[in-house]
C-alpha cells in the first residue's frame, strides 16, 4: 500500500496562513481587486514581495482579461489629465456623478506646461508623447507609477503615426513611430523597446496601393496595432484595416471590414471588451458600429449599434468619438473635442460627465492593473533586499522617477 504523501503533518489544525504554501496565498491574492492588493502590500515583507512581483501582475491581468473586463476598465483623458469611472454614471444611484471623475495631482504628470498627447493604452499602461522636450511618458493611472522615456533621434513632433502595445513573443512593450510625414510611405519605422530602453529603426513597407485614412494612433488589439486605411488598387477606393504586428514588426492588411450597403465609410477603430470595434457616423446624425472577436480573414463582424441622433433635443454635436461602453449598452462618446457624454441609444438621452477641458481633449480606455512601467525592477528605497524564495531582488537605487 502506498503512502505516497511526502509532506509531513507537523502543522496542527489551527495553524494559520503564515504557514500557507506560497502557491495557496498567491491563489487568494490573485482573486483580489487592485485596491486591496495595493493596501495589502503594507501587511508584511512577504506579501509585499508577492504582490510586487511582475509575474504576479501578469497573472492577475490574465485573470482580469478572462473575466469581467468592464469592471476594471476606466477612461483616461488629457487636458487636463483625469480618469473616469464611467460605469458610475450608469449606476442610477443619485450623487455618484461627481465621483465618476478624478483629477490627477501628480506634479510630474502635470500637463499644463508640457502638453501631453495620447499614443496608446495597453495592459493598464498609458503611453503619452511630450511635445515640449520631445519625449514620452509611460504611466499606470491606477498605481500612479510613471516613467519618462527618451524620444528617438528621428522624433518628429508632426510624425504621422504612433502606437503602443505588447509583444507577447518577446514579452516586451513597444512604442512604434513612423519616421516620415506620410504614414508608412517611406517605409521607415522606429520602435522603442521598453525592455532595452532604446530605439531602433526598421523597415515596414506598406504596399503602394494602400494608405492610411488619416493621421492617428493605432489601436492595440491582439498583439498588433490597427488603423483604418484605403485600398486604391481598384476603381473605387475601398476601406481596409491595416495592421502592424508587434512581434513580426510587419505591416499587413489582414482583417476584412464588414459588408455594408450604402454610403458607409469606416471612420475609426476602437476596442469593445475583448473585441475590435469599427464605427461610422462620427460627423453624422447617425451611428453604426460592428465588432469582431476573431483575427484573420475568417473573422466575421456583428452589428452592435445602429441608431440615428437626428431630432434629439439639445443634441447638436458635430463630432463624436466612441470611447467606452457600459454593461447596459450605453455608449460613452467624446464629443466636439471637449465634452464626454454617456449616450443611451434606447431612449436617445444623454448625460454629461463632469470633466474639465482646457484644450482639445483626447481619451482612451485603460484597465486597472498592477503592471509597472518599469517592468521587472523598480527604483525604490524600501525593501532593499527581498528574499522570500521567489528569486525577486529589488535593486537599491536612488529614489528617482525617470
Amino acid at each position: 500500500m502506498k503512502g505516497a504523501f511526502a509532506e509531513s503533518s507537523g502543522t496542527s489544525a489551527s495553524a494559520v496562513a503564515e504557514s500557507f504554501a506560497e502557491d495557496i496565498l498567491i491563489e487568494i491574492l490573485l482573486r483580489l481587486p487592485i485596491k486591496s492588493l495595493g493596501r495589502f502590500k503594507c501587511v508584511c515583507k512577504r506579501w509585499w514581495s508577492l504582490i510586487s512581483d511582475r509575474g504576479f501582475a501578469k497573472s492577475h491581468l490574465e485573470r482580469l482579461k478572462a473575466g469581467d473586463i468592464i469592471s476594471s476598465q476606466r477612461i483616461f483623458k488629457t487636458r487636463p489629465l483625469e480618469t473616469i469611472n464611467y460605469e458610475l454614471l450608469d449606476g442610477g444611484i443619485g450623487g455618484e456623478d461627481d465621483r465618476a471623475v478624478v483629477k490627477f495631482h501628480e506634479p510630474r504628470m502635470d500637463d499644463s506646461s508640457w502638453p501631453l498627447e495620447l499614443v496608446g493604452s495597453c495592459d493598464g499602461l498609458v503611453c503619452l508623447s511630450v511635445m515640449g522636450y520631445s519625449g514620452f511618458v509611460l504611466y499606470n493611472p491606477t498605481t500612479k507609477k510613471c516613467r519618462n522615456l527618451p524620444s528617438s533621434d528621428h522624433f518628429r513632433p508632426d510624425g504621422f503615426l504612433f502606437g503602443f502595445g505588447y509583444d507577447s513573443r518577446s514579452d516586451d512593450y513597444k512604442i512604434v513611430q513612423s519616421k516620415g510625414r506620410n504614414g508608412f510611405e517611406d517605409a521607415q519605422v522606429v520602435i522603442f523597446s521598453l525592455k532595452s530602453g532604446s530605439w531602433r529603426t526598421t523597415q515596414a513597407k506598406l504596399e503602394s496601393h494602400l494608405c492610411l485614412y488619416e493621421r492617428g494612433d493605432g489601436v492595440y488589439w491582439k498583439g498588433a496595432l490597427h488603423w483604418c486605411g484605403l485600398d486604391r488598387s481598384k476603381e473605387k477606393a475601398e476601406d481596409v484595416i491595416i495592421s502592424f504586428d508587434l512581434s513580426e514588426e510587419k505591416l499587413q492588411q489582414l482583417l476584412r471590414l464588414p459588408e455594408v450597403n450604402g454610403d458607409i465609410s469606416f471612420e475609426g477603430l476602437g476596442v469593445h471588451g475583448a473585441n475590435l470595434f469599427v464605427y461610422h457616423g462620427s460627423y453624422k446624425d447617425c451611428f453604426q458600429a460592428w465588432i469582431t472577436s476573431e483575427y484573420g480573414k475568417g473573422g466575421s463582424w456583428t452589428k452592435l449599434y445602429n441608431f440615428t441622433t437626428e431630432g434629439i433635443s439639445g443634441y447638436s454635436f458635430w463630432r463624436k468619438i466612441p470611447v467606452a461602453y457600459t454593461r447596459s449598452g450605453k455608449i460613452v462618446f467624446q464629443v466636439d473635442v471637449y465634452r464626454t457624454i454617456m449616450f443611451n441609444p434606447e431612449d436617445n438621452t444623454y448625460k454629461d460627465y463632469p470633466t474639465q477641458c482646457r484644450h482639445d481633449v483626447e481619451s482612451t480606455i485603460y484597465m486597472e492593473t498592477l503592471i509597472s512601467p518599469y517592468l521587472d525592477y523598480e527604483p525604490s528605497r524600501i525593501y532593499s533586499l527581498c528574499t522570500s524564495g521567489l528569486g525577486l531582488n529589488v535593486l537599491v537605487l536612488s529614489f528617482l522617477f525617470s
Partner: protein
Amino acid sequence: MSSPPSASASSSPPPCPKKMITLRSSDGATFEIEETAALQSKTLENMIHENCASTLIPVPNITGEVLARVVEFCSKHAEAGVDDESLGAWDEEFVAVDHTTLFDYIRAANFLEIPTLLDLGCQTVADMIKGKTPDEIKKTFKITTACTPEEEEEVRGENQWAFE
C-alpha cells in the same frame, strides 16, 4: 462493500457498479467515497490508477473532521443532474464556516488537488478579506513578522492610491 478480489490482472475487470474507496484521515477515522467522486481529486486519481487493487488510501495530512467535509464536497459535485444554481447555493452553505475551517478546506483542496474546492475556498477568502485594512489582515492571518515603522510608512506612501 469491498470489491471482489481479482484473480489475475490480465483480463479487464467487469465494470463495478459504484466502486467505493476508503480514505483514512490522520487521526485514524475512515470515510467511504465513490470512485467517481474521488476522481475530482487529481492526487486520488493518480493513486487509484496506480493502485487499483487496494481500496484503502491513507490521507495523513488531513484530520477526520476536514476529510469528512471534503468527501461530502466531492460527492456532491460528482452527483448527476444538479443544476448550477442549486450547486452554487450548496457551495455557499459549504463555505459558510469560520476562517480557520476555511483555511483547512483550502489546504486539503491544495493537497488533494481538487480544483473546484480550491477555487471556491480561495475566492471565498478573497471576498472575505478584500475590504480589510492591513492591520486587520495581520490579525486574520496571525502575521507576526513586523516591519519597522519607517518601512511601513514608505510602503504606505508609495501605495497611497490604494487607500484613497
